[in-house]
Every structure is written in C-alpha cells, then in structure tokens.
C-alpha cells in the first residue's frame, strides 16, 4: 500500500545544499573505510562537500577507485586504497600511504561492513567471522591506528562509526549483523571516554534504511516502493542525509559532542517496520489506537 496522500512526509534539502560551508573541513583529510560505494561513499561525499581530502579504503580496489572518481568530481583530492580492515599491518600500511598522498589523517569514518539476510542456524563459522570481524575488529583496529597517530602528533580528531537502527532491538534473520553493529555502538562510548583527554571525539550514527545500489533489503520484487509505508516517517532515507549527519558530528559545529549514538531511522526501530505490515497511525486504525479493541 502506498503512503496515503493526506499523510505529511518530512523531507530534507537536496544533495547540493549541505548543512555546512564548503570549507568546514578545509586542510583536513578523512579516511573512510568501505568508502567506495553505498553508505561509505555517502559519508565520503559529505566530507568532500565540506572540503576534506578523502582517502577511500576498500577491499576491492576497483570499487574504491570508482568511488574516488565520484568524490574527486566534487572538487577535492581523493585517493583509493585496497585494504582488509581485519589486518592490523595492512591498516597501518594504508594509513602510511594515505598520509603520504594526502597528509595527516585527522578524521575517520568507520563504515566497512558486510551484511546479508540469513537464518541463524544457517550462518557458517566463516560467514559469522566475516560479518562480525569486519565491523567489530575493523572498527577497533582502524580507530586505534588513528588514535595512536593523533596522540603521537599531540592533536585531536574525530571518528564517526556507521552503526544501525536495530542495535537495541535485535534483528531476527540477521544475527551476525545484529551482534556486530551493537558492538560498534557500545565501543563508541568507551573509545570516546578513553580518548577524551586527547581531544579525539567518537560518535556513531544508528542508521535506518538508506537504499543504495548494494543494499540487500531493496532487492525484492517491486524494489523499495513497498517499504515506504512500513516506516513511520513515510519513506526510506535519502543516502545524503546519512552522509551529512555523519560528517556533521565531526565538524566544530558539534565540537563538544562525543560518545553519542544518534538514531537516524525515520522511527523505524520504534516499530520494527521491515517485519511488520504497513504503518497506520493510531488515529486512523479502524479498531482504535491499539488496533484490536
């Protein structure tokens, strides 16, 4: 069922009207893991819209290069690298390479992740390890590499982690990602506490559904159209909204913010929308506010 015409759906400004000036990250370099496509690319573009130079780290060099081409088109320097975020030596080498090309990395976006719907009993040890370790170990290893370098320079910095809206509710049918994404959120708070004395801020976005070319939830008959009415906000997210909020946490505008997990999901997590029928506001339920009186 489509969203009824009389419902009001809040929408953001278009991509070319970011919420911060084009030089807010001028002179700074951000490293975005998994930044070649999807949500990572949205983060990378948002940082580029604020004037940051962008290092993109991806497992696939080809995909990282494709992303870098789109980022560079926004008028900033960008550099693509291939790296497995589960390998600490490879991460250190990639940071070295990025800093040689673009200068010291003062901003980090931990986005690298893998996810696919599967019953818990069908998750093989390899699949479990892949999904959990890319997100959990990858976020830890990239963040600690970043922090050691910032602390050595005597300079602060900012990290933003891409978490998910299902971190407090569980995600039946996606057990590996449910575990992984919550670990990212809970480590966000502790990393923020550990590094506050060094001026390094750490925040996370618990993101709802922002459809993109590689998102699995959109791969169904009818595409994402049937999903719109399941979400209280009346729509799935525009991916640049996610990129903007991620980058915004790293700006001086939010300069005192650290240790926060901000939910950006159009109310989805508050009603488990992707597993439930279309959303009908309590006022419009045929049988009263609870729907069964």
């Amino acid at each position, binding site marked *: 069922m489509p969203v009824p015409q009389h419902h009001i759906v809040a929408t953001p400004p278009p991509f070319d009207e970011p919420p911060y000036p084009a030089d807010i990250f001028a002179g700074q370099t951000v490293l975005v893991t998994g930044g070649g496509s999807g949500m990572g690319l949205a983060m990378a573009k948002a940082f580029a819209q604020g004037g940051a130079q962008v290092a993109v780290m991806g497992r696939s060099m080809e995909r990282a290069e494709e992303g870098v081409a789109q980022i560079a088109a926004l008028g900033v320097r960008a550099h693509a690298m291939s790296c497995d975020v589960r390998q600490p030596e490879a991460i250190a080498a990639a940071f070295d390479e990025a800093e040689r090309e673009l200068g010291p990395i003062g901003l980090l976006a931990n986005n690298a992740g893998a996810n696919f719907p599967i019953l818990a009993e069908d998750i093989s040890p390899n699949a479990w390890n892949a999904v959990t370790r890319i997100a959990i170990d990858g976020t830890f290893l990239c963040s600690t590499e970043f922090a050691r370098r910032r602390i050595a320079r005597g300079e602060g910095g900012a990290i933003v982690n891409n978490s998910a809206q299902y971190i407090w509710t569980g995600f039946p049918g996606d057990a590996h990602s449910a575990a992984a994404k919550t670990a990212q959120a809970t480590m966000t708070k502790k990393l923020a506490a550990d590094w506050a004395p060094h001026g390094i801020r750490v925040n996370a976005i618990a993101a709802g559904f922002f459809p993109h070319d590689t998102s699995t939830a959109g791969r169904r008959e009818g595409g994402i159209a049937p999903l719109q009415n399941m979400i209280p906000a009346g729509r799935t997210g525009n991916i640049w909204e996610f990129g903007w909020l991620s980058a915004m946490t790293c700006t001086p505008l939010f300069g005192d913010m650290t240790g*926060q997990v901000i939910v950006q999901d159009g109310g989805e997590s508050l009603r488990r929308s992707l597993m439930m029928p279309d959303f009908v506001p309590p006022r419009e339920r045929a049988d009263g506010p609870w729907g069964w009186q």
Partner: protein
Amino acid sequence: MSGWLNGKRARIEGECPAIASALAAQGASLVDAGDCDIWVHIAPPPPIKLAHELTHAEWRDSLDAGLDRRFLGAKDFAGQCRARGTGGAILFVGAPEQALGADQAAAAGALGNLTKTLGVEWARDGIRVNSVLTRDAGDTLGNLAAYLVSDYAAYVTGAVMGIDLDD
C-alpha cells in the same frame, strides 16, 4: 552555513541562550505565542536532593516541569500543526536522566519514552519529536538543537541523545 531555518517560526519555552541564538542565526523567527513551525521546551534543572529529603511538592514541581508541561505543550503544538496541515518539529531539552535526583530520573526517563512514542504516533502528521538530555549549555547544544528542528534532520524522529560523556 546560516539558513537551516529560513522562513520557520520557532517558539522557545524555557531559558537557553545558546539555543535561542543558534535558532535565530539559522534564520528562524522567534515568536512568543501563536502559530509556529517549531516548539522547543527547555526544562530548568531541579536542585539535587536525596530522594528521602524531597517533599511531595518538590517532587511534583519537577515532574510538572520535566514531564507534564512538556506533554501538554507538545499536544497543543501538534494540534496547531494538524490544523494548518503542515508538519512541525518538537525538541525537548533538559538534564540527563541520572544527573540529578530521583525526580529528574523519573521525569527524564518518562520523557525519553514519550519522545519515542510521540515521534511515531505523529510521524504521518509530519511532526518530528526528539530530545537532548545534557548538562552542556554551549554552542554544540545550540547547533544540535538547530539541526534537529531543521529539515536537515527530516529522518531523525523519536531520538534521544546527549552531548558529552557525562550525559
């Protein structure tokens, strides 16, 4: 950077200079009464007292300011939004749940779940509802408030957040 709130009318109930100046700097017109697109409610922090030293009157004052007035004000504001057929944004600002006394713990906990409830219940009226529970009163609070009531936060509703590690 300015202009997140161009053309929006905002009513702020309670005192927070950083929020008032950030909303105005982003282009909002601040109004004292009447129709508005944004309603921000700031509850003053109650004094810190041990629970067994709180009188019932003190307890009630905290709950009135930290919870009841917020619900009733939100209800009025949402009614205005529905009557004019446009959406709106509500933001509750106050101290963190465990920062003060038991009165604040009760009020802020109730407020958090109220935020989540109203955010969903009024979603299709285009009305967003969020809360910031913090002791910060500086520029980050002002900027965060301005962001949350702007269209840039169109996909943020029912969210409860703080600012720093103590929140």
